[in-house]
């Protein structure tokens, strides 16, 4: 019997199913497996950015041309990028998908992550639609559905992944 796919592999397969024209990101431990799979993928380029705000710009460039783009960053990285997210993504109504690892959950209590999560709740949720998922149990159609939502809403959408109590370790 085949084993259950890891969270990183499941996320990658869902990404591929959405047929993005590019994927861009800055690593987080929970995203490492997916990023390595993306870098090896022949289906789309993976653009490794030095800083998270650049990722938002890269995705906006693709979306301005009418193409699908995915951003993968940690919650602290998105917090660093809110100016770009607001003044490009929201202002121009660009339907790209941002996958955020929302560190600092109850099952993920690193001391250095706690304030990131609180800032994410205080700063990101009031300005953008966030859909939350257990990183170890992702639906196959997650990223295709995220694009459908973003394209219908004409704005970027955030998929927040977190570790949950009782769930298999995602990373």
């Amino acid at each position, binding site marked *: 019997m085949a084993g259950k796919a890891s969270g990183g592999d499941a996320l990658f397969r869902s990404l591929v199913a959405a047929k993005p024209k590019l994927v861009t990101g800055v690593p987080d431990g929970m995203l490492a497996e997916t990023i390595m799979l993306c870098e090896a993928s022949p289906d789309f380029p993976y653009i490794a950015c*030095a*800083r998270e705000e650049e990722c938002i710009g*890269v995705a906006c460039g693709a979306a301005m041309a009418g*193409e699908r783009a995915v951003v993968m960053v940690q919650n602290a990285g998105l917090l660093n990028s809110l100016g*770009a997210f607001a003044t*490009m993504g929201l202002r121009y109504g660009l339907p790209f998908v941002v996958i955020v690892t929302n560190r600092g959950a109850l099952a993920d209590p690193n001391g250095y992550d706690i304030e990131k999560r609180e800032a994410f709740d205080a700063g990101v949720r009031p300005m953008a639609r966030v859909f939350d998922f257990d990183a170890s149990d992702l639906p196959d159609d997650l990223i295709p559905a995220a694009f459908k939502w973003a394209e219908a809403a004409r704005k970027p959408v955030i998929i927040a992944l977190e570790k949950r109590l009782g769930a298999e370790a995602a990373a």
Partner: protein
Amino acid sequence: MSDLSNLPSQKDAIAAALALYPARPFAVSDIGSQTGWLKAASHDARNLYVSGPMGLATSVALGLAAVRPNEQVLAIAGDGALAMNLTSLATIAGAKPKNLSILLVDNRVYEFTASVPTPTRELDWLAVGRAFFGVEQCMRLSDLTPERWASVARPAMIVADIAAAPAKPPALGMTPAQIRLDFLKAAKC
């Protein structure tokens, strides 16, 4: 640094850089000064006027270049803007897009902010560009001809020392929706 008394305007420098190409490239301009002067120099549906944070044009241009690999893309950044997104040069150097170039227009001031001097006013931008892209991939606008530019491998960077303008450029006069729809049509052709 060139002789400050004999520098081109930003508008003329942008026009000269665009004229290096045999066919109109996509041009992605940073917010404020670059966007205003790009429109004044050469308004075109292939212009993408960025209203995001200062400096993001190079990143937006990288995303555009990745999804339009058969088209030339020129990012237009001021010295103040590029200093705010200097890491994008490292990202672009790593991504190695074969169709992306950067025009750095250096007037040594934040033109849209009362011409306050930039912290990079004594920086050697030619050396910065060459550190990221290589000696042959970064040169001064005044040293380029269309023939020479055609032979330069991308990613590449053009450094243009320009005169500080006595006034801001004309207002863009376009809404984000207009910019997006106009550009989308051009990018889909």
